[in-house]
């Protein structure tokens, strides 16, 4: 097998996918309720404001009505919570993917398309292909490896291709333009308003952003011991963005966890180990303990 194939299918512990799966499906439930609650309001957005996306026209998807929006909402919420448990990974996984995709088409068909969730959509599309995966299982799997790898690729594409899009739409002038000044005027926080007035700082930040986006694929090249620091740097970039212009890119952040050794994160196991298990005590021991 040649090197690109070995890289694409590099096996990872099944427990990593189990943890990532729980994280991603829990995120979908939170996305519905907390992060992008405005999608629901399209239930009673007037129908003539609906401008269906290409994919919605190809698939002949119906104009959202209150019934459609609320049906998708509740079905997705229930199925995502069920999928987060890891049960029926294929059936629940495909159902969540299909419903979330429709949910996104409802979200983006009213005049504004967001660019923060390609990584999450890829994760939802590939997680069902892994099949069963138990939390804490350290046996290596190529299916799991491919699923996480392509999610990572989508996450890095979100940076790298964004740099190319800046060159396409803004050109090289983007570097010295007023793009960040405008963003801060529109939605800047107190912190951003104070930083924006420092001469040259926003321009320097623009050079930094392009550089970071173009170099982001190096995350796969740097030595393993520094990789988590690289991912931490990605997350810190979004902390900064959020503190300046309150844009969180939350779905992208969830997908980016595909880089992390999540099989080591076992919160339920930790709680179990720490607390006594009264159910396991025999009645006599329970009396003594009480």
């Amino acid at each position, binding site marked *: 097998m040649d090197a690109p194939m070995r890289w694409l299918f590099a096996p990872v512990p099944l427990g990593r996918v189990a943890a990532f799966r729980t994280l991603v499906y829990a995120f979908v439930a939170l996305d519905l309720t907390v992060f992008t609650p*405005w999608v629901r309001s399209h239930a*009673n957005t007037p129908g003539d404001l609906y401008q269906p996306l*290409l994919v919605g026209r190809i698939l002949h998807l119906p104009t959202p009505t209150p019934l459609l929006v609320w049906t998708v909402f509740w079905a997705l919420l229930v199925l995502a919570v069920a999928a987060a448990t890891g049960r029926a990974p294929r059936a629940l996984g495909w159902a969540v993917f299909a419903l979330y995709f429709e949910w996104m088409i409802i979200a983006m068909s009213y*005049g504004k398309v967001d660019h923060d969730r390609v990584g999450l959509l890829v994760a939802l599309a590939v997680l069902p292909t892994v099949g069963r995966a138990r939390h804490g299982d350290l046996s290596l799997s190529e299916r799991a490896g491919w699923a996480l790898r392509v999610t990572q690729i989508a996450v890095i594409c979100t940076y790298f291709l964004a740099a190319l899009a800046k060159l*396409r739409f803004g050109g090289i002038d983007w570097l010295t333009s*007023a793009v960040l*000044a405008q963003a*801060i*005027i529109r939605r800047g926080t107190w912190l951003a308003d104070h930083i924006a007035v420092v001469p040259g700082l926003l321009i320097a930040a623009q050079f930094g952003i392009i550089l970071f986006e173009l170099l982001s694929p190096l995350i796969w090249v740097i030595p393993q011991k520094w990789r988590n620091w690289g991912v931490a740097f990605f997350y810190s970039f979004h902390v900064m963005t959020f503190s300046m212009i309150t844009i969180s890119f939350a779905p992208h952040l969830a997908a980016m966890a595909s880089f992390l050794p999540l099989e080591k994160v076992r919160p339920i196991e930790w709680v179990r180990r720490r607390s006594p298990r009264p159910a396991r005590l025999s009645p006599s021991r329970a009396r003594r303990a009480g």
Partner: protein
Amino acid sequence: MAANELTVRGRRVRVVATLVAGALLLAGTFWGVDDDFPFGPFRMYSTAPDPNGDAKDTRVEGVDTAGRTVAITEGNSGIRRAEIEGQQSAYESDPARLSQIADAYASHSPGAAPLRTVKIVIRWHGIEHARPTGDYRDEVVAEWTRP
């Protein structure tokens, strides 16, 4: 050795899926538009506004029957600012469309006094050397009052 080794076919299907999705995303980046979601270009903040031009900050305001000015937000109307901006020219050519925002506000903010007037206001902020100057002026681009 990996626990669940892939078959030749399983591997081939995955390679093809990876290449097709990658090619679509790449094509979307160079030639696509937002309409091609999810394969459109990642064009968030990709324009290059004039470092010495005015910056546009759009807001929607309502005046309720009690004479109070209310900022119309996603929270109280369910409509995002970017969605109003995306369809701004439609509101400009037919300000009566703003009545739909009053309706959306009424259904999202039950108990609030109904809106008598809705308007789209652009605040133009001065920019010099890619920095805000602190000066601004307001321009009303569309206004509707309940007949």
